[in-house]
C-alpha cells in the first residue's frame, strides 16, 4: 500500500529559499540588501582609494579660509576678505531669494493662465494655450538665455543716461518720474531711506534695520486686527443677516497705522543717480537676476497653469451649475466654489513644481547670477580644488531646501484637503 504524504518532508533544503513562497520574499530582500550595500561600499572604497592616489584628503577646513573673490549680488554684507563659508551663505541666500520670488510669480502667472485657458472667450483661451505650449516645450535654459540676450542687447548702457555737455540732453532718460533706469547691466530702482531712523542692529549674520522691523511688526498687528474685525462682521451678519460695511474700514485698519509710522520715521525713496560708470544711490537689480527670474517664472508658470486647469476641471460641473442657480456671478463661483475644491487636486503637483523651480534656479550659472552653485559649487570649488567636499555640501543643502519646501507644502495640503468624517 502506498500512501502519498501530504506534508512536506521534514528538514530544510536550500532550494526552498527560492521555491518556497514562505521564504522567497525574504531571500529577495536579503539579496537586494547585499547588492545595495556592495554598491555603496564600492563607491566609498573607490572614492577613498582615488583620493589617496591623488594625495587629496577630505576636509572642510577650507570653509574658514579667506575667499579672495568678489560677488556682485549679495543680500548680506560680503567682501573678498570674507570666508568661503560666508560666500556659500551669500550663494545660498541668493538661491533662496530667486526661488522665493520665482515661486510667487510662477504661481500668480499659473493661476491666471490656468483659469483664463478655460475662459469661454475663444481668443483668450487660445492665447493662453499658445503661451502654455510655447513655454512648456522649449528648454528653460534657452528662455533664460533669450531673456539675458534681450536685456543686454536692447537696453542702453548706463552711459546713455549721461547728459551730453554740447547738446544738454541725454540719449535716454529714466522712466517712472525719473526714478528707474533700465540699463544693459541692471535696473536701477530707488532704495528706501528713513530720515528719522531708529537705527541699525549689527549682528554677525547681517545688519538689521530697526525701521524695517518696526514696519513689519506693525503690519502684522494690523493684519491680526483686521482679522478680528472681519470676524466681528461675520458674527454680526450671522446674528442679524445684515453685513456691516467693511471694505474701507478694513483698508484703514490695514494700512493707516503703517503709513503713519512711515511718515513718522521720515520714509522716502532715494533715487539712483549716474555717477562715473554706474548708477549709485539706489538699488541695482542685476539683469542676471531679472533674466533668471523671468525665465523661471514663465517656464514654471506654464506647468502650473496646466495643473490649475486640471484641478478646475476635476471639480464636477454640477458645482458650477449649483452655484449659478444660487445666483452667483462667475468670478465669485471661481473664487468661492471652484478654486477651494480644486486646491486639493492642485497642491500636491504644485509642490513638485516649486521643487523644480528651486533646483532649476541653479541654471543661474548661465547668466552669472551667483547662487549656491555659482559660489560654493563654482568659484570656491575651483579655487580650493575641493570638488568632493563642495559637491557633497551642495547636494546636502539642496536636499534640505527641498525637504523644507515639501514639508511646508504638505502642511498646507493637509489644511486644504477634503475633510472626511
Amino acid at each position: 500500500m502506498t500512501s502519498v504524504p501530504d506534508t512536506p518532508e521534514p528538514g530544510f533544503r536550500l532550494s526552498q529559499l527560492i521555491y518556497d513562497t514562505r521564504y522567497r520574499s525574504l531571500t529577495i530582500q536579503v539579496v537586494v540588501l547585499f547588492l545595495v550595500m556592495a554598491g555603496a561600499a564600492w563607491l566609498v572604497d573607490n572614492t577613498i582609494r582615488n583620493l589617496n592616489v591623488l594625495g587629496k584628503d577630505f576636509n572642510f577646513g577650507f570653509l574658514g579660509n579667506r575667499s579672495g573673490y568678489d560677488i556682485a549680488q549679495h543680500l548680506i554684507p560680503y567682501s573678498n576678505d570674507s570666508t568661503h563659508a560666508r560666500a556659500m551663505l551669500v550663494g545660498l541666500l541668493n538661491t533662496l531669494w530667486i526661488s522665493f520670488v520665482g515661486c510667487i510669480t510662477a504661481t500668480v502667472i499659473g493661476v491666471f493662465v490656468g483659469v483664463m485657458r478655460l475662459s469661454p472667450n475663444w481668443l483668450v483661451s487660445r492665447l493662453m494655450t499658445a503661451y502654455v505650449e510655447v513655454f512648456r516645450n522649449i528648454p528653460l535654459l534657452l528662455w533664460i538665455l533669450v531673456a539675458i540676450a534681450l536685456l543686454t542687447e536692447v537696453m542702453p548702457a548706463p552711459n546713455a543716461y549721461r547728459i551730453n555737455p554740447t547738446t544738454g540732453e541725454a540719449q535716454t532718460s529714466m522712466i517712472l518720474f525719473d526714478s528707474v533706469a533700465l540699463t544693459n547691466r541692471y535696473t536701477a530702482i530707488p532704495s528706501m531711506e528713513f530720515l528719522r531712523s531708529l537705527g541699525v542692529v549689527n549682528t554677525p549674520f547681517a545688519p538689521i534695520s530697526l525701521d524695517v522691523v518696526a514696519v513689519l511688526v506693525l503690519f502684522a498687528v494690523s493684519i491680526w486686527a483686521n482679522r478680528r474685525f472681519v470676524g466681528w462682521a461675520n458674527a454680526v451678519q450671522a446674528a442679524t443677516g445684515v453685513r456691516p460695511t467693511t471694505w474701507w474700514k478694513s483698508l484703514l485698519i490695514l494700512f493707516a497705522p503703517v503709513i503713519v509710522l512711515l511718515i513718522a520715521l521720515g520714509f522716502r525713496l532715494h533715487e539712483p543717480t549716474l555717477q562715473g560708470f554706474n548708477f549709485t544711490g539706489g538699488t541695482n537689480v542685476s539683469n542676471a537676476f531679472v533674466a533668471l527670474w523671468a525665465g523661471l517664472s514663465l517656464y514654471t508658470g506654464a506647468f502650473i497653469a496646466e495643473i490649475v486647469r486640471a484641478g478646475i476641471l476635476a471639480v464636477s460641473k454640477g458645482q458650477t451649475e449649483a452655484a449659478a442657480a444660487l445666483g452667483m456671478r462667475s468670478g465669485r463661483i471661481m473664487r468661492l466654489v471652484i478654486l477651494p475644491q480644486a486646491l486639493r487636486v492642485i497642491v500636491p503637483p504644485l509642490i513638485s513644481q516649486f521643487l523644480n523651480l528651486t533646483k532649476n534656479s541653479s541654471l543661474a550659472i548661465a547668466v552669472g547670477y551667483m547662487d549656491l552653485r555659482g559660489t560654493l559649487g563654482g568659484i570656491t570649488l575651483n579655487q580650493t580644488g575641493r570638488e568632493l567636499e563642495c559637491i557633497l555640501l551642495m547636494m546636502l543643502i539642496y536636499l534640505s531646501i527641498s525637504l523644507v519646501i515639501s514639508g511646508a507644502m504638505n502642511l498646507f495640503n493637509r489644511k486644504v484637503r477634503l475633510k472626511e468624517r
Partner: protein
Amino acid sequence: MKKTVFFGALAAAGLTAGIASAATLDDVKARGVLNCGVNTGLVGFAAPDANGNWSGFDVALCKAVAAAVFGDPSKVKYVPTTGQTRFTALASGEVDVLVRNTTWTFSRDTDLKMDFAGVNYYDGQGFMVHKDSGITSAKELDGASVCIQTGTTTELNLADYFKANGMSYQPIAIDSNAEGEQQYIAGACDAYTTDASGLAATRAAFADPDNHIILPEIISKEPLGPAVRHGDSQWLDIVKWTLYALIAAEEYGVTSANVEELAKGTENPEVNRLLGVEGGLGAMTGLPNDWAVHAIKAGGNYGEIFAATIGESTPIGLARGLNAQWTQGGLLYAMPFR
C-alpha cells in the same frame, strides 16, 4: 553569515575599483591618442577652425607631446575646458595634460595636486576698454563694471588690485571667453580683464580691433604653462622635456625645416643628444630616441610656433618680450640636454 558576505562583496569591489592609474604614459599608449585639455576657443592659443581642426600656441604643445610619444602629431583629442572645469578634468583623468593658459601658482601646484611642467608663456593680467570711453589707465576704473572669467587667478588678482588702490568695482561673472566678448561688446561691462595675451587674442578677433585699447597696467605675474596630475614623474618629465626640446631647438637653430637633416648628425654634441643621435636620452624616459625630432617637426621650434600663432606677423601681434630666449634678454631657458 551576513558579515562574511558583506566583506566578500567589499573585497570584490576593492579588486574592481577603478583607480586613476599612475602610469599616464602607458595609458596614453594603450589608448593610442593623447587627451589634451585646451580652452574653449581663444584664437591664437587654441581654437577649432570651421572643419574642427584645432590650432594655436597651446595646441602646438599638445601636438609636440603627441609627436614625442607616438611620432604622430595628429594623435590628439582636444578636450575644451572652461576656467571652472579644467582642474577637475585633469584630476579625474579626463585629460592627460592641461595646456590652457593656466597660471602656475603655489596652491595649484600643492593643494590642487597638479604639477606644472614649465612655463610656455610668461604673462601678466591686463585690462581692455572701449577706446571711446576715454580711459587711459586702470587707476581710472573706480566704480566700473568689469567682466571676469570665474575660477581663474584673474578674479583673485582683480579683487586684490582694486582693494590695494582703494577702488570699487562691479564684477560680472562669465564662464568662457566667448561669453566675455559678447558682454563686453554689448557694453555690459566697462572693462574686460584677463591675461594680457588673452586680451590681445580676444581683441584681434573683434570686427573693429582699433576701437579697443589694452591699458598699460599689468597687475600680476601670470606664468602660463602645461600641467599634469601630481604623482607621475615619468609623465611630468615627458611633458617638461618636450617643452624644453622646443625651446632648446630654437636656441640651437634647429627648425622644422632642417631637423631631418640635423638628425643625421652634427658637430654640436648638445644638438646630437637632443635629436637622439647620441646619448640615448629618449630611452631614459620611456620614449624612442628620436622623440624630439618628431616633436620639433610637428610645428617647429618654440620660436616658429610663436611666430606662426601669436607673433608679430599674426593679427594678435604679440612681441616676444619676456618670452625671448635667455640669450636675447628673455626668460626662456631650457635645461641642458645631457
